[in-house]
């Protein structure tokens, strides 16, 4: 029977990860984004990019469920998707680069095909490797093979370049589902972060002599966000556990995790802005960051139809 509880040791590590992120990734950092260079350094030292590796290999020996819980926390703090790219390179990228990726001395970033022969590079910074997700496949390109120019990014905290990759990948594997799961975890965390921001605001902002969260329209909107975030997290965790056991239904549960986390992040991003009223539309208020980042992560996951097909054809 399904059991989604974490054992004590895993739970302690996840709690420590959350505390680490709370300290090292305050949302204020995004006013002056640095491509998460500072954050990745702190995380690398903690062992973030070797979470799944065995303890005697310098890792934390965490199962998929606990790893994904940690990534959800990262998503709540709007950690850059480059961190996921680095973690993927660390666990299953070009073999020669894995140690450097685990140690944090080398970094990876994501690339997305635009469907017309060009490629977007997200938050490339000083990445050595660009990771491209294509369904079940993960391709690892030399970053040096990319040339492009900066565009005005949808999410100003994710520098975005449009260009070309002029060579085939250095290395490919079939860990596309793992990549999708980690991005879904970021989205689920994003949805939760947005809901929390809105709920916290609704508890303190007063109008008509009381906190706006006491009015049913606002309360109910907040509840819908909180429940959607919980559903996304639950499904992401179940997908992680199913994938880890290579149990039947892993692909199905992952497809559901992708769809539910997208839906929740998209809705909650807007919901958080709405609950903040006029302030929500300002640059100063943080609500817009969840909305924008949700869309970036959704584009990373690619066409939803691919995942929808699994939900239609698998029993």
């Amino acid at each position, binding site marked *: *029977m*399904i*059991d*989604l*509880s*974490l054992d004590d040791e895993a739970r302690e590590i996840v709690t420590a990860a959350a505390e680490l992120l709370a300290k090292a990734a305050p949302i204020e950092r995004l006013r002056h984004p640095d491509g998460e260079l500072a954050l990745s350094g702190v995380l690398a030292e903690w062992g973030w990019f070797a979470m799944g590796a065995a303890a005697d290999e310098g890792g934390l020996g965490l*199962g*998929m*469920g*606990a790893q994904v819980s940690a990534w959800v926390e990262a998503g709540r703090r709007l950690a850059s998707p480059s961190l996921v790219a680095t973690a993927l390179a660390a666990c299953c990228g070009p073999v020669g680069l894995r140690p450097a990726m685990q140690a944090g001395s080398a970094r990876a970033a994501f690339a997305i095909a635009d469907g017309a022969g060009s490629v977007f590079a997200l938050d490339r910074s000083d990445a050595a490797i660009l990771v491209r997700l294509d369904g079940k496949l993960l391709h690892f390109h030399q970053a040096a093979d990319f040339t492009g120019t900066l565009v005005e990014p949808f999410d100003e905290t994710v520098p975005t370049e449009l260009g070309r990759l002029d060579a085939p990948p250095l290395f490919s594997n079939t860990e596309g589902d793992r990549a999708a799961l980690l991005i879904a975890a970021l989205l689920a965390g994003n949805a939760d972060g947005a809901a929390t921001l809105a*709920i916290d605001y*609704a*508890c303190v902002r007063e109008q008509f*002599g*009381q*906190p706006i*969260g*006491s*009015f*049913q329209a606002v*309360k*109910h909107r*907040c*509840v*819908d966000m*909180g*429940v959607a975030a*919980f*559903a*996304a*997290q*639950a*499904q992401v*965790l*179940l997908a*992680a*556990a*199913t994938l*880890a*056991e290579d*149990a039947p239904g892993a692909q*199905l*549960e992952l*497809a*559901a*995790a992708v*769809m*539910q986390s997208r*839906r929740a992040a998209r809705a909650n991003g807007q919901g958080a802005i709405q609950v903040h009223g006029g302030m929500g539309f300002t640059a100063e208020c943080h609500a817009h960051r969840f909305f924008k980042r949700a869309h970036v992560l959704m584009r990373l996951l690619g066409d939803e*139809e691919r995942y*929808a*097909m699994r*939900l*239609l054809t698998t*029993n």
Partner: protein
Amino acid sequence: MRIADTGEETLFREEARAWLADNVPRDPRPAHNLAAQRAYDVAWRRRQFDGGWGHVAWPADFGGRGLPLAQQLIWMEELARADAPDHIDMFFVALQHAGPTLMACGNPQQQGFHLPRILRGDAIWCQGFSEPGAGSDLAALRTRGDIDGDHLVINGQKIWTSFGGFADHQELLVRTDPGSSRHQGISFVICDMQSPGITIRPIGNLAGDDDFCEVFYDNVRIPLTNIVGEPGAGWQVAMSTLGFERGAASIPGVLEINRAIMDLIEEARARRDDGALMALAAARAEALSLRAMVHLVIARGRGGSEGSMVRLRLSELAQHVSGLAMDLLGPVALDRSALGGWPRRHLIDLKHTIAGGTSEIQRNILGERVFGLPKEAKRK
């Protein structure tokens, strides 16, 4: 975290599956005819009881099997897989609320008399809570219980009592403290539905059934020994089981909607309806996440209020899915019994966001108890 069954769980699952294969009724539950439904429900209850499956969750002290939660969940999965009769039948109130309330708050005499009868299928229970003036605001209830010697004399009215005409007993909330208001001074009473002075009036619902009723009490005498828990503490008694494994309680409905969606996917594929297929894929993702939510609620061990999140989403998904069925059927949906009765189901599904606590109230409760939002200020 774990997905697969343990060795012990596998053996249990096989035992459950084998028994169900031999014992699940072949005929479907009769539609419309309430008397026939009663007979069907009693027969199924008795068969489960005789087979040792009287109640997997109830403690052995009270005649159940007292199984660990994981096995209770396996039993529910196997019931769904075996196409067992829907868990919402005439025994629903007895098994899900009245019985657990007696276990939590009843005295040994009440437990010893009523619990075995519930498990064996010898007694059907209904609920006497809501009144015309006390629905979402149940604390506004006014049905009175005045003490006369060693009896209570009940006067008033209840509404929305499902299967009132077929129930033997009713869990009845009455105001026994004359000066009291709101949550104070209410008592939880076991009412014998054969008592003189009770009039039951079925109410026709929009789906053409009349299984829920108004119940009128005209000087109905009930022994004081039928009060459950302390007199005047009836509100707390009634609420005592609302935290009762709320997460797991949603599992039958969650499993059922997952299977219903699969049936519709097959139908949509046969009709080559791509629009319907995309909508059903999204619905399936939602249905799968409901199952994940149940398990996460259980893993976090905070059943009560958090479990309501599942109920809320499930009720709305159910309505959405039967709506998709309507669209899929097109003009054929004009026949209420088309495709196994999906149009009729879409009518009945309207109640899921109303019965047992409206979605609006559920959202208020979730907002305040789970998400920490402030209560609405009282009007001056």
